[in-house]
């Protein structure tokens, strides 16, 4: 019987092992060795790679960028998603159309979306600068100015993510029985009070799910940086995974790439555990 159970688990276990666990272990091992030059064997260096990484100012800059990016995108996109979901969950003419419009950015491939925003942000012919010019303001170099570039990337990410999260909130909102609203209306509960005392707590499982997802997404950004800024100017928009990519495939420094990857994994694991333990206790699952 136990063999039978193990066999049922096997397909999933093989896939996970080949594409998740083995690479993770290989990466951890990689991060502990220095590659040998000219055929020399690799050399075990212990934590030295981490030491070098933590002394690298670019790594800290990229990490800081990523933190700003996360703080900039996660709360905004979640709040926006919730507002949009509440809006299209109500009685509304052309509700189906509005829902679809909100969801469209999610269907677009990242590369296509980034290309669209390239036109918005372009310094001379871009939509935003044209609009500003029409109003009599001088244009902004949205992607070229180190002070503005990261903000521009954040705005685009929020635009792309909010519609996706809205779908989850919308599904959760539809799962809330309408009698709850009626029962609270009969008690003269205001809409504001109903939202905070009933709707929001009942959406907590969704919020938790979306939070974890958006956290993972915020360290998974490669493609739109590739189109929009390539991490520049002067690493102003460089984020962790893109930095890993650069190290691995532009500088051919596999060791540093592996080291950063391990750091990202550890940070993500710690944050996710914290979120689940703290928020889970206060979350009601139906």
């Amino acid at each position, binding site marked *: 019987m136990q063999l039978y159970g193990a066999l049922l688990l096997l397909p999933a276990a093989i896939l996970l092992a080949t594409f998740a666990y083995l690479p993770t272990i290989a990466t951890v091992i990689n991060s502990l060795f220095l590659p040998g030059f000219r055929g020399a064997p690799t050399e075990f260096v212990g934590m030295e790679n981490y030491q070098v990484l933590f002394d690298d100012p670019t790594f800290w800059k990229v990490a800081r960028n990523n933190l700003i990016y996360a703080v900039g995108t996660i709360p905004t996109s979640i709040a926006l998603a919730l507002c949009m979901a509440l809006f299209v969950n109500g009685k509304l003419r052309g509700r189906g159309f509005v829902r679809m419009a909100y969801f469209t950015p999610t269907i677009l491939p990242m590369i296509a979306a980034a290309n669209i925003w390239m036109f918005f942000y372009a310094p001379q012919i871009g939509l935003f600068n044209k609009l500003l010019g029409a109003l009599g303001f001088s244009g902004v170099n949205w992607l070229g100015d180190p002070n503005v570039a990261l903000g521009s990337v954040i705005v685009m990410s929020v635009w792309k993510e909010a519609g996706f999260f809205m779908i989850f909130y919308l599904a959760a909102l539809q799962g809330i*029985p309408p*009698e*709850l609203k*009626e*029962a*609270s*209306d*009969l*008690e*003269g*509960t*205001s809409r504001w*009070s109903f939202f905070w*005392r*009933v709707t929001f*707590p*009942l959406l*907590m499982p969704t919020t938790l799910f979306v939070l974890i997802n958006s956290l993972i997404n915020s360290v998974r950004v490669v493609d739109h940086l590739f189109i929009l800024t390539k991490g520049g100017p002067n690493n102003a928009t460089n984020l962790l995974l893109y930095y890993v990519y650069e190290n691995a495939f532009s500088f051919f420094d596999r060791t540093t790439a592996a080291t950063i990857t391990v750091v990202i994994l550890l940070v993500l694991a710690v944050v996710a555990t914290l979120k689940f333990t703290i928020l889970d206790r206060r979350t*009601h699952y*139906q």
Partner: protein
Amino acid sequence: MSNQSRIRLERVTKRWDATTAVDDISFDVTPGQFVILLGPSGCGKSTTLRMIAGLEEASDGRIFIGERDVTHLPPGDRGLSMVFQSYALFPHLSVADNIVFGLRSRKVPKAEQRERLAKVAELVDLTDYLHRKPAQLSGGQRQRVALARSVISEHPICLMDEPLSNLDARLRSDMRREIKALQSRLNMTVIYVTHDQVEAMSMGDRVILMQHGSIVQDGTPDELYNRPASAFAASFIGSPAMNLLPLVTGEQGAVIEGETNVPVAPLEAAGGQLGIRPEDIELHPASIYGVPAMVVSDEYLGADTIAHVSVGGHTVRVRMSGKHALAGQPCSLSWARENAHLFDASGLRRDDLTPNPLPSAPRAVPRPPAVGSFQH
């Protein structure tokens, strides 16, 4: 008793696009009354209740509570509470928080909330469950939380929308008595929606029977049972339902369609229907004069037996106390004149005619507990 909890509907109508759910309804509920809105699904009873609650807006007509015109007031300002069929408990809140939810909305001081909670929890026997979540309660307990939530508001009016239909049969009969006791103890005015005629008969001071958005009959349970205003009312009240037999013209009067020997009503009744309750029909051996019939099958229910009897091609149900095995035997039927009801072609009751007496029908002497034999 103050007039505060009087409810008055004046020509209230609810339309959705082409369909009219509630059609020009008027009634007046006096304070302290337990009124049942009864009818099959889709008859507009729930819509009527929701319009009183303010959850649906009336398309036409006016609704008064006390002396106030509340037709356009939001639900929270109408001074009433409501119990939902699905209970509508907040799943993430404890029983205690569910019960005081409305008090918090109305900003009742904390100390008073606790005091009222303790009193109400005692009243509905939930004191030991106050810290549980609704998911950890049984159906009956959840129903009590819903009741407590409407009782604690201390509104004189309570609306109930099929509150017992999610419970099993035994629990339902317990809760029926509990709700009724609670209502008379707190002297609440209750409007109670149900499709279950047993609930209507056992709980209501007054029953308003509805069909297709209109009121069919408005009276005491007794009146509905003994003097049904229409064939529909007759068939809706009582279990099993009243037998309705089409009448046609015979030689000496109206006869049951397919059974031309015995005139059962004056000639003018032909074209209408004859209604007799299963419990009002007496079954005799075929030799005794009456409406000839044939027992098709019998259903033994413990305390009594329902015999399905064929009369001129129509099936008539007859209720007899005790156990009888009569299937396949010929027999004759009779009933007392006052227990037969006549309805005209459109189904309305007619009181201008009296059904014929069935001459030999001996007035029912107390029924003997005969097993497997006819009553004599």
